[in-house]
Structures are given as C-alpha cells and as structure tokens.
C-alpha cells in the first residue's frame, strides 16, 4: 500500500467527504449496537433526535460544544506554535477555580462589570497556569508534553485541596464550593434552555483567534515559530517570548471553558467539572486541522456525537459506554476521510 498526494478535489467533494464519514461511522457502530442487542433503526433515529431532533436537544448540543470549542481553540493555537499543550484540562480547572472564587466573592458592581471580572480571572488563571510549562520549556528546555500533562494532575489535586478546604461550602462536607452569586452567572439567552452567554463568547473566540492568526503581527510570528523556530530566530523573532505569549493565550482560552462550566452550567465548583474537555480539545483541534473555524466545526460535530450517542444508549438500553466507542470511531473515520481528500491510496503488494 502506498500513498500519494492527489490533485485538489472540487469543493463539493470536500463537503461530501465528512458527510460520508458520518455515514460510515453509523454503519460501523451497528456492530456494537447489534452485539448489545439494540434496535438499529431506533438507535439511529434516537441518536439524531437526541442531538438535533428537538429545539431543547439542539440547544443542549450547542451547550456541550461551547467548552469543546474553547479547549479546541486553546490546543489549536498552541500546537500551531509547536507548543505541545496537553494541559488544557488543568488550565480549564484553573479557570474554573478562579471564576468560582470571583463568583462567590463578587463585589457589588453592575452585572456586566462582574461578568468581565469573572471572565478575566478565569482567562488569566488558565493562562498563567499554562505559562509554567512554557517557562520550563524556554528556560530549561523541559519537554512541554510531559509537564503540561503532569500539571493537569497537580491542578486537579490543588482543586481537591481547595474544595475540601478554603473553597468548601460552609455547611457541606462534600468537595463542592458555595454557589456563585446570581450577578456572576452567565445570562441564559434563550428561554427554556441552557443556551448561555458562554456559547456566544465561544463563537467570538473563534473569530478572534482566526483574526490573531491571520491578521496580526503576533499571529505571523507564532506561525513562523511554529513552522521553523530556527529560521524565525534568524529573522529576529524572539522565539521564547512568542512561545510564552502563545501559552498565555492558549491557557486563557482553556480557562474560559472552565469559566463557562462554572458560570453557566453548575454555578459552583466540583471535582468532576470537566469530563475531559481538555483532552477532547486535542482531538478536536487536530480534526479541525488547527484552524479556528475547522476547530469550531469539529467541536460541534463532536458534541452531536456525544449528546446523540448518550441519549441513544438510554432509549435502546445499550450500555451508556457505547457513546465513547462511537466517539472514538467517529474520530478515526473522520480522520481517514480527511486524509482521502488530500491523498490517494494505491494498493501495491511489497
């Protein structure tokens, strides 16, 4: 089997391929469903109904897409500058912690001011937490993959400490913080749903990152450092400062995901505030080819699968873990599909 680049495909094929990928995924997921004795037709219909079928479900899918978009952007932006940030999870937690802290003790200010305060706190917390590995990378050449990864656990336990200590709800023995003040909560934008301000912020973030990447001096430098640090340095770009700023922004974006979960979903801090949004972010960024818009699409695609598959498992009585199985398959199939848009595969016996 050999693989060779192919001439660019026409636009409509480019569009069709992902659609095809989704169909293939459904086909493949038939195996585990039947294995578990589920009803295929019901599964497929409930999958789509669960994710997009009703107004509420569709909006729920958007709700799920918001944090995924933030972490996806965080990773995409970092990876572009070859800062291998596997730590979006920890940065998300940092953001959540800061947002909670501000949200609990918010000063008496107009709501807008408080919200800005909450977001800034979360953004900075995530960003600063990400600059730790960035500094270790630039100062001591410590591999960023490991440090970002390990610091996720560190932050998780720091959160654990806070939730059993300073941040614990007074009359509770559980690892939970007090609820944040009304004034610090994201407004719900559509009645009878959880469609909140954070979703709009996520969309805004997509545009901002796209703008930074393609229009600003910093974006140019980040790209230069990303494709060839040595050449960038030769050209007079301060590689270290670019990496650190990248980390700050990347971590900040991840932090915003945490802010959203606190200020719009849970209204308080708890240990499992993130079902691995940070790690999914890596997958999503890669699916989106590290491009902001692609990342947003990937995030939505992913939440459709998550939300849909979960509801499907309930309606068909298939163990809920099928959701992750389908996610995994969807990811891999989509990846192969995207490959086929660029390459053609020739079967050749060695």
């Amino acid at each position, binding site marked *: *089997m*050999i*693989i*060779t*680049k192919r001439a660019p495909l026409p636009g409509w094929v480019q569009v069709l391929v992902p659609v095809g990928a989704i169909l293939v995924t459904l086909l493949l997921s038939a195996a*585990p469903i039947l*294995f*578990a004795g589920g009803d295929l037709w019901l599964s497929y219909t409930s999958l789509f109904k669960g994710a997009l079928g009703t107004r509420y479900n569709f909006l729920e899918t958007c709700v799920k897409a918001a944090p995924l978009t933030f972490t996806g952007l965080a990773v995409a932006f970092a990876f572009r500058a070859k800062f291998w940030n596997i730590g979006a999870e920890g940065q998300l937690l940092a953001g959540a912690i800061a947002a909670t802290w501000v949200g609990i003790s918010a000063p008496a200010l107009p709501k807008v001011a408080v919200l800005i305060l909450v977001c800034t706190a979360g953004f900075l917390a995530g960003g600063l937490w990400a600059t730790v590995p960035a500094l*270790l990378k630039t100062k*001591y*050449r*410590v*591999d960023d*993959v*490991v*440090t970002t*990864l*390990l*610091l996720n*656990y*560190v932050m998780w*336990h*720091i959160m*654990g*400490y806070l939730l*059993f*200590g300073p941040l614990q709800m007074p009359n509770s023995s559980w690892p939970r913080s007090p609820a944040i003040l009304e004034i610090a909560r994201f407004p719900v934008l559509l009645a009878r749903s959880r469609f909140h301000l954070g979703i709009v912020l996520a969309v805004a973030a997509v545009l901002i990152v796209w703008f930074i990447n393609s229009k600003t001096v910093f974006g140019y430098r980040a790209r230069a450092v990303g494709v060839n640090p040595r050449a960038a340095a030769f050209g007079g770009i301060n590689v270290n400062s670019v990496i650190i700023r990248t980390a700050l922004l990347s971590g900040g974006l991840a932090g915003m995901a945490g802010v959203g979960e606190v200020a719009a979903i849970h209204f308080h801090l708890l240990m499992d505030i993130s079902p691995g949004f940070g*790690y999914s972010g*890596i*997958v999503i960024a*890669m*699916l989106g080819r590290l491009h902001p818009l692609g990342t947003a699409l990937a995030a939505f695609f992913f939440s459709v699968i998550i939300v849909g598959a979960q509801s499907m498992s309930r309606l068909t009585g298939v*163990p809920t*873990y*099928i*959701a*992750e*199985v*389908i*996610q*995994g*398959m969807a*990811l*891999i199939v989509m*990846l*192969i599909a995207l*490959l086929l848009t660029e390459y053609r*595969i020739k079967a050749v016996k*060695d």
Partner: protein
Amino acid sequence: MEQVFTITFITGLLAAMMRMATPIIFGTLGEILSERAGVLNLGIEGIMLMGAMTGFLTTLTTGSLWLGVAAAALVGALLALFMAFLAVYLGLSQHVSGLGITLFSTGLAMFIYRLSVGSPVNPPTVRPFTQAAVPFLSEIPVIGPAFFTQYTLVYWAFLLIPALWVLLYRTTWGLAIRTVGENPLAADTVGINVNLVRTLCLAGGGALMGIGGAFLTLAHQNMFLIDVVGGRGWISIAMVIFGNWDPARGAAGALIFGFLDALQLRLQGLGFDIPFHLFLLIPYLMTVVALVSVSRRAAAPAGLLKPYRREEKG
C-alpha cells in the same frame, strides 16, 4: 515520625514501590519501544484498560491466570496494530490516532465488561496471582521481602528492562529500530522496511502495555473496575521522556514515581494533619521537578511524530 525509620516501614515502602511501579514500567517500556521506532502511542491509556479488562474476563471464564495475561498481551498488540494502520500506513497524526484509540478502547472496555457481567451485587473476582519468593534472595533482610517476594509479573517487568536494552543496543534489530526512529529515510535507503519495523515495535509495545494493565486486575487486584488504570498510561508517557527514551532510566523514573506514591499513602497513615490532596499531588509535582534536572540532555528520536512517505518531498 520515628515510625518512618522502622524496618517494617522501610521494607513495606520498598515492596509497595515495586508493586506501584510495575504497571508503569510495563507501560514505559512498551512506549519506549514504539517511540524508538518513531511512533508516539497515545493509545496507551486505553490499551492498558483493554488489557486489564480482557485479562480479567479471560481469567474469570477460563480460570487460568496465564491465559488472562496472554489475552491481555494479544489485545494490546491488536490495538497497537490498529494504531500502526492509522499512524504508520495511513500516516495520520500520531496525536489524534492515539487519543482516538484511547477514547475508543476506554469505551469498549467498559462496554464489553458491562455486557458480560451485567450488574451483580458484588463485582466478580478472580483468584489472583500470589507472591512468589525467590529462593535464598528472599531471605536477605529488608531487600528480600521488598524485592524478592513479589508477583511473577513484577519479576517480568524488571527482567524486561535489560532485555529491551539489549534488544535496542546490542542487536541488528535494535540498530534498525533506532535508525528507523531517528531517520526513516536512512533506514529505507539501506533496505530496511520502515513501516514494517514501526508496526512490529508498536505491536510489541502494545503487548507490554496490555500486560501492564492485566497486572492491575490479575495480580495487584482481583477485580476489574472502571478507571482501574487511572492515568498510569499517561504517567508512562511522562516517564519515557523523563528517562530520555532509555529503558533503564525510564524504569528508574517509574520506580521514583511508585516510591513517592507509596510514600504519600504511608505518610497519610502516620497522621500528619495535612490535607490528603496535598499528599496525592506529591508524585506529580516531584516528577516535574525531576524533569527540570534531566531536561537539558533530553533528545527525542528525530523521526518521532513524522509519518514516513517515500515520495513526499521536502
């Protein structure tokens, strides 16, 4: 405090270090094998979980522990072969392929487990490996009970360290593997089948990861529960880099980590009035600190993360 320096405490601590380190050593060695051939296998976390699950169910149904270990190794290898298909033959991003496999296998492991055991009052258990004392050596005070009264798989792990080292540095295959990992083009132009080498290394590594998972459900424990791997795969990845892609150093890292983990549990037992979460983060923090000290000479295989396509230019 004086309790810290008693013989039993130290012996127990060292023995615990060995047990805690073993699954991580399996994972680390498996990952080193893959990465030395130029493939980062982020599927490790999921592969270890599948190994833990398959090993457990096999033993549960057949009653044979060794069949369980074999099954775990087999499943690990198969998942790694799938990784090879994606990352080596198709040349897909190693990051995503690996994470995809972890996602997929994590779900699959629980899915299969639930289907096969349903929801009993108590989770099913197997009669696990018992510790086997090495004649004579196990007599030595402290050392004996700590290092030479262990599960067979622990001995395996520690024998695998020199074995992998010899494979990498003293055999023609090892030289081929290292060359493939450093510069696939160089390997190809001397007639080495780059993709085949990478595939075999992934498969071998996957088998080790699977066994590492099985250790948790067949030796250290006697039941399978969700999260039983609990991030040990990710830690292995960290140890590979900590160990600078060298089997001995990687295993040393795993031991240090196991030591700290065992220590923090014991310190809790001694009843210092420190929030236990601060104990729990010691191993991770220490590893980061340790990394700073070793980082300067860190040198990843030059071909890591790069898919090899012959007619790709530039």
